[in-house]
């Protein structure tokens, strides 16, 4: 069912903040060409996991193997150059730089190939007429789209998207889904955090459910949705007990 060419393998990932275990012996596998969802209640360690994979935080234990190479504790910029890009929960475009400059910063140079590769993506998300605009003047939705295109300009194979659909209008959401599908059709792989069960079900072929920093459940969207542990993670044990009583 899942494509079997392993792109990202996270094993035994553990991270403590003082006495709190933010990520606890976590395992994740993402195969090439997949869109994998990472869901879980607030505070379950999803963003921390992203921070560790992308190199912003060092894990206490565990390894991260990307495309056959152990990238655990590499500096962030090296991980990015290896082809692993992330977007942030709150957009982080370079406000006072133009859209074009934002893309050049990611691509590394102004070379023609940038426009050759990125042009169609800009067109797809209707940003091509805003190249000279300061990125800070774009709407939040457009900034999210730019962040994605920028990650593509970096030449990423794997995109880590942290709540890409939070706080954007339906039109932008459509553009974003189109962009993800387009990039996937060109061979890109995605690991995304989101709360919107509907969207995750529509987009993802496989889902990991995290709670208290651990793998709680995994499987296809249907499997995870049916799994009682999902309800337990979101609503607590009492909820499950309540339904059983009825």
């Amino acid at each position: 069912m899942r494509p079997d060419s392993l792109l990202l393998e996270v094993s035994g990932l553990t991270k403590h903040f003082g006495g709190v275990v933010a990520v606890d012996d976590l395992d994740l596998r993402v195969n090439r060409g997949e869109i994998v969802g990472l869901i879980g209640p607030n505070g379950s360690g999803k963003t921390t996991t992203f921070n560790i994979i992308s190199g912003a935080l060092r894990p206490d234990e565990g390894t991260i193997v990307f495309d056959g190479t152990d990238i655990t504790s590499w500096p962030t910029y090296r991980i990015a150059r290896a082809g692993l890009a992330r977007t942030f929960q709150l957009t982080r475009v370079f406000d006072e730089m133009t859209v074009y400059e934002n893309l050049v910063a990611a691509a590394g140079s102004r070379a023609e190939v940038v426009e050759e590769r990125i042009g169609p993506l800009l067109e797809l998300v209707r940003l091509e007429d805003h190249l000279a605009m300061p990125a800070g003047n774009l709407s939040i939705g457009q900034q999210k789209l730019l962040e994605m295109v920028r990650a593509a300009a970096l030449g990423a194979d794997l995109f880590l998207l942290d709540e890409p659909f939070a706080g954007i209008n339906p039109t932008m959401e459509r553009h974003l889904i189109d962009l993800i599908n387009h990039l996937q059709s060109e061979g890109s792989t995605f690991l995304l955090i989101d709360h919107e069960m509907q969207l995750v079900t529509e987009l993802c072929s496989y889902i990991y459910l995290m709670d208290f920093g651990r793998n709680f459940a995994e499987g296809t969207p249907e499997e995870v949705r049916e799994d009682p542990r999902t309800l337990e993670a979101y609503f607590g044990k009492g909820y499950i007990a309540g339904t059983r009583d009825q």
Partner: protein
Amino acid sequence: MHMTSQTARSRSKGAAAAYRNKTKTYRRVSIALAALTAVGFAALPTFWLANTYQVRVATLVMMWMGLATAWNIVSGFTGYISFGHAALFGSGAYVVGLGTARYDLELWVALPLSFVLVGALSFFFGLLTLRIKGHYFAIATLGVAEAIRVLINYARSITEGVVGFPLPIDLILIDPKVPYYIMLGGLIAVVITAAMILSSDFGIRLLAIREDEAGAEALGINTARSKVIAFTISGAFSGFFGGMFAWILNFLSPESVLTPFVSLQVAVMVIVGGMGTIVGPLAGGLGFYMLSEFALVTAPRLNLLLLGSVLIVSMLFMRRGVFGTLMASRFWPRGFRL
């Protein structure tokens, strides 16, 4: 399906090409403006400056413009505010001062040496301090600069300490137009360097660091390396301008080149003029130095008050400085960095 992606490609390529053409036009305009200004400065001593004092003042104006531009390369582009440039400026001054007075070097050797040695010093200074982020960096640079000042104060057997020493008499007797033109050359060099950086891919990486360092890192930018390179270039030029200052001043003591006041003044010039722009530091250096010279002549005790007021007013009403504000306004063509 195939057709639409074809037209999409050509449309977006058209948009990108149009944007690039526009930036090319902007570049031509900037080069023309810069060339005109350079010719104007070159003609000044012949056509306008009446006496030695005026040539000296004009030379010092260019020095501050150049030092402000050098400071801008690191602090304006990357957003890392340095309060330590007095140390680099002062070290350059001591390279020329000690080189000519104590080690009998020719001035024509000592001046390039101030560029090279202070460039090397800045490289280590940068390695040491640029790991520290935000405001802590500013404080660290202040600390390192003070350490260098204390070092020169205490190395009395070499530097004569706080007492200072004069430069060789034959340097004093050189026609003031000679340092004027060398300073003009140095100013042109630093402005060209800054403009080339700003319009390059490297410059875009520096601006990205200023906007969001973690974000830049996440896009594959080796921020540590970029910052150290910017700091080294900035420091080399600062050292050269310091060397020129020693020559013009004819007398060297820590009090004249190594005080935090020098660092502060150059920062204020750029902040008021417009950080991260090319004309901002030039206008700031020119305006600020002329103003302080005017204040010094008309109201010797009040000049610092006047300068402080300018800074406060600028911070309150123009956070981006004069030219930064202008370029962020909607009348300014987008993507035109001047």
